[in-house]
């Protein structure tokens, strides 16, 4: 996994930037559901556990001239995959750490992830804390196990973006990613990957060399 810093280009007035984002958190808090909502605007209440990790991309427009493409690593939350996590957060520009607002222990796990990210990941990594399953407490307020204020206080203290989200109702999902995008350093975006400079994100650039970029490998 080669170094992949923020990537971007500027054509005329429009800006395009590409960032690597990783989702972390305890299993069954809804990481994949948040991604599915964000990428495909779908929800599936009986999702099976993620196996390994899934790699997805989604592009959002911040304004008329600014397009941000996220390369998302949706990781599996199980303990046995823990040793693989550094591979996903290494060189990540941003991370979403997810917990389940109806499960007290999931916030503890989230805090561990935040600590690990702050110690091991990119120095400038932008971390967002997302308390998922907001829809459950809207229906039954007594299901809530973690008060918004508590989580918010922690987030402020640790310097994290904070949202309570519902992948089911889509509440705050887009807002979460948009606010991450806004915090990302769009202007410093350099070449995405020296090795395959011309590739990836091809379809988003007006002056691309066409879709045949991926010719046969030279090896």
């Amino acid at each position: 996994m080669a170094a992949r810093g923020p990537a971007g280009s500027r054509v005329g007035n429009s800006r395009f930037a590409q960032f690597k984002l990783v989702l972390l958190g305890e299993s069954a808090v809804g990481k994949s559901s948040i991604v599915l909502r964000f990428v495909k605007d779908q929800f599936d209440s009986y999702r099976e556990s993620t196996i390994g990790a899934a790699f997805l991309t989604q592009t959002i427009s911040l304004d008329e001239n600014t397009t941000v493409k996220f390369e998302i690593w949706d990781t599996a939350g199980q303990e046995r995959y823990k040793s693989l996590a550094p591979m996903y957060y290494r060189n990540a520009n941003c991370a979403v750490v997810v917990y389940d607002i109806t499960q007290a222990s999931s916030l503890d796990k989230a805090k561990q992830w935040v600590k690990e990210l702050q110690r091991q990941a990119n120095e400038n990594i932008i971390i967002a804390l997302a308390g998922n399953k907001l829809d459950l407490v809207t229906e039954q307020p007594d299901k809530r196990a973690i008060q918004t204020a508590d989580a918010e206080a922690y987030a402020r203290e640790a310097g994290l973006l904070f949202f309570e989200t519902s992948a089911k109702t889509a509440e705050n999902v887009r807002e979460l990613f948009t606010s991450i995008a806004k915090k990302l350093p769009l202007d410093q975006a350099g070449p995405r990957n020296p090795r395959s400079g011309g590739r990836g994100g091809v379809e988003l650039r007006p002056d691309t060399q066409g879709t045949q970029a991926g010719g046969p490998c030279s090896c």
Partner: protein
Amino acid sequence: MRHSSDQRKSPSHDRLYAPIDTAPTATAAEEDGITATMTHDGENEAPKHRTHADSEQSTATITPQKDDATTLEGHEQRPPLPPRTSLLGDRPTTPLSPRKRPAFQSKPTTAVSSVDIQTLSFPDGSRGTFPTPGSRSVSDAGHGISGGTSTPSSRKVSQNGSEFDDSTSLMSYTPTLRANGDLASLLDEGLNSQSPAWKLLSSQADNVNPFETIDYEDNALLNFDHEFDEVEAVDSKGGNEEQVLLQWKGKLKHYLILSSAGKPIYSRHGDQNLINGYIGIIQTIISFFQDGKDPLMGFTAGDTRFVVAIEGPLYFVAISKLRESDSQLRAQLEALYMQILSTLTLPTLTQLFTNRPNTDLRRPLEGTETLLSSLADSFTKGSPSALLSALECLKIRKSQRHAINNTLLKARTEKLLYGLVVAGGRLVSVIRPKRHSLHPSDLSLIFNMLFEAGSVKAGGGENWIPVCLPGFNKTGYLYMYVSFINAHDGEESSSDQRPSTAGSSPEDEIAILLISTDKESFYELKQMRDDVVAQLERNGSMDIIKTAVRQGRPSTADIVPGTQLRHFLYKSRANVQFMMPSFSPDFSSLLARRKLMSLYHNLHASTHAKHSHVKVLHCVARDSISLVWTTPLFEFYCVAGPNASRAGLAQGANKVIQWVKREEERVFIIGGAVF
């Protein structure tokens, strides 16, 4: 109640189906008990099934005279086998002697009985005599499997069965009650000696499909429609406990996995509260025999077979009412064990239990229950691939496959170990290093993960999955890059524009799998995938794959027009691959498919039993007729409707085998591409 090995029952498999090479009149004293047991069981459970051992000669010449006699000659050249007891009435007049009765039979008094000779009249005026024990059948009817057997029983031979007794007189006057092929071929050399009236009658019913008739005696599959329903949770007040237990017990198949310390690890049905007690019981039973250095292999209760497999610190138990053989159930348990290894690797598993024998393995395995369950469900539905331990390939032209292989080889990156293109669980292309082959059981695990369990596919996008392939190396992980392409898409679905998978079946999914030993090689393999897909699009191979996937498997009638065969399995032994036609139209429903698969399981068990030397086997039942044929090159299983003629069956079999020979390089991957 238990056997320490399979040998006790297996020698009798071949006799059940009237093997061609059995020396019919010889008696081997030491095998008497076994033989008699089987006879007894056969009567009890499946009086309606019978085979043709009575007419040794006609069985031996399954190929009708007018067919070229080359096809079955293989078995005729085999050296004579040592004398064995024939289960079936060797000669009409040979009484079944009392000493043949098993010692552990439940009803000794009824077992000792004289044999009546019954005479049958046939439509064409011929007569035949049969030995039938006079008194036994009725009193024994209704019993389940007696202890000690686990052979597939629904098709057991029972020329002495009660039904035979009851219906012989009827049959002699109203031949239309029975399938024509059944009785006629029992004694007749061919079918040509039938009266014109008989032929007329039979021709009307020729098109009855297998399992079409209502099988009122076989209610084993009565609840099959509910087999995959979830068992309700016991509610907190326990009010529905009885009902839940009833549902749980109604399941035809259970798989339990527990640790030797008695901790539950996995159960296909029922939640923890429900199964905990049973886990305790089974652990006690297994451990009891473990201490005695004579491990428990299996036991039978009523019509339910329990098979136990012990793998290090893990106990695996299969509980089945579907009448599979012990070795088949054992293979299923083995697959579950491989799935666990695939998640954890052997050293991790061993270490967990060495450090803490009391380990609760559910946590380390968390999230993989669905993989175990989808394996369990595919066994319960009946999986040809699992039965034959072989893989299926997508049928495309040799040159087309060659082009795809070359595309993969050209785009190959340094980190690549295996590269595969798979469509709906069928292999399209494989490239591998010269020194490493791919183990079919490893591939089955991967296919189960990708195509049966929805977890990977549902996520969309691309996946990077650490996986241990036990056949390759059970001590470490490999890393697998997976991306799906939907065969119904106009264009390839990159991670950006992948449509929902909701509407498409797993059969329509094309997956590119790139496997590496390096966990950091995701981007490299992703690049390779992009190159491969672009190239496949450019040289037209992608369209070829998509078209082949959309077409699905050919039906039997497409392969051999006008044949009486309704389904078949052909396994190429050398390639460890198999070929089959589509389940539709005749076996589209889950139940019909299960019946078909049960039949295949029985046929498979008969030809694969230890010490079995059966090469050709023709089996006639009320609802179907079937044929197995094994040679060093292939195993062939086929089924036709109950009224199909044996000649038609044999002819169809020959045609299919000729067809496969002709199409061999299309339906199988021969050699494969190496680098």
